[in-house]
């Protein structure tokens, strides 16, 4: 009786804390191998050219907001995030500089001077490559199914905890690259980004990352 009650309490707490095992996935106990493989692939990745589909889910909306675009990444820290539909928005990060362009405005930010943008920059670049697994101040849980590793990350850092409840990464078992990336806010609203038509180590000219 006491054992039954104990199991019930454990399950109840797990459900409440949102850390229950996701459906269709089983817990991975040996995570060192996954971390090692993801790091190996990340170190061999010099560039990424991928389309993306972003789904924004808001509790009060009955439908998602779906936007599309192209993401370019080049080592060491060059990023171009371009939304093409249904709105135009361009974000380029290169050599500590950030450029944001929309239909009729442009903003340049020195990342060194902006702690918030700097943290977001680290988060994006590390998430694309899966290197987020190496970031400190994030606790993790690993799960898997036949084709995918599913990794949940919980920020421990106070600054990030103000915005993010959980980060979820889906990593392909085929090539150990990130296929989906979901950021869940404190309210449970979330943003899911799916990477499609991914091309690794294709030549991308530096001009695509021009912040001037």
């Amino acid at each position, binding site marked *: 009786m006491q054992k039954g009650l104990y199991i019930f309490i454990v399950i109840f707490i797990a459900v409440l804390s949102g850390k229950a095992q996701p459906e269709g996935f089983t817990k991975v106990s040996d995570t060192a191998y996954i971390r090692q493989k993801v790091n190996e692939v990340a170190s061999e990745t010099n560039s990424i050219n991928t389309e993306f589909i*972003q789904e*924004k889910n*808001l509790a*009060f*909306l009955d*439908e*998602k*907001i*779906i*936007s599309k675009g192209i993401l370019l990444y080049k080592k060491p820290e060059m990023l171009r*995030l371009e*939304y093409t539909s*249904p*709105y135009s*928005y361009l*974000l380029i990060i290169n050599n500590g500089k950030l450029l*944001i362009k*929309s*239909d*009729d*405005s*442009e*903003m340049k930010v020195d990342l060194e001077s902006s702690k*918030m943008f700097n943290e977001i920059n680290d988060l994006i670049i590390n998430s694309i490559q899966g290197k987020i697994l190496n970031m400190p101040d994030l606790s993790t849980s690993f799960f898997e199914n036949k084709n995918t590793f599913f990794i949940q990350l919980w920020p421990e850092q106070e600054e990030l905890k*103000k*915005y993010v409840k959980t980060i979820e990464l889906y990593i392909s078992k085929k090539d150990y690259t990130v296929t989906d990336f979901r*950021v869940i*806010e404190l*309210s449970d*609203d979330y*943003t899911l980004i799916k990477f499609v038509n991914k091309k690794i180590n294709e030549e991308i000219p530096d001009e695509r990352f021009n912040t001037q």
Partner: protein
Amino acid sequence: MKRYLTSVLILSSLLPVFLSCGSLHHLGYRKEVAVNRVIKPVFPPDFDKSLYSVKIIFGDNVFTSLAVIKYIPEDRSFRLALLSEAGMRLFEIEFLKDGSSQVNYTSDFMDRKAVVKKLSSDFGLLFLSGSENIVKSFSSASVERKYVLRLKKDGLKDYYFSPDVEGPEKVSERGCVFGRTTVILNKYGDKGPREIVFTHKMLKFEISLKQIDYSGWN
């Protein structure tokens, strides 16, 4: 002397308020009596939801974001959320059927009392609940069927209407701290105005919204 100084200070602080309260007579409107005028809402009765791109100019700073406006038929309220283009929620507010509003979320870096209050009062001008009273009405002396309704809605606000335009073309609010707030609404379609611009007379603070053609919703 002290009394004189106090009077000067009070009068000088009230001066901007008087200056910002320009009379409708100067704009060619005449007060009318016993005329039944219709309050045309900004968003049509069958409105569901709409997506806007937002540009905020504050001083020398320019910010962009997205705005989602959704009508909730269950409680006849409107929800408005500001989101970053990458999806992060920045601000969310609910405009209730009794004319009041409730801020549901403010991101940490926007969490300034004055900013939240100004955004709430500005966006509140777009959502008429039907509980507003018409205090006065004015008709244009030069353009036929053009009229202004002075509504009692958390203070007095002037809504300008033109013939053959689905909603107000302009909204004007007399403010004591920031001076007059003016909203220009353009290009009405089946999802409300395609362009909305808020300006503030005594503050370099402008909010522009442009409706996004979004086919992803039913």
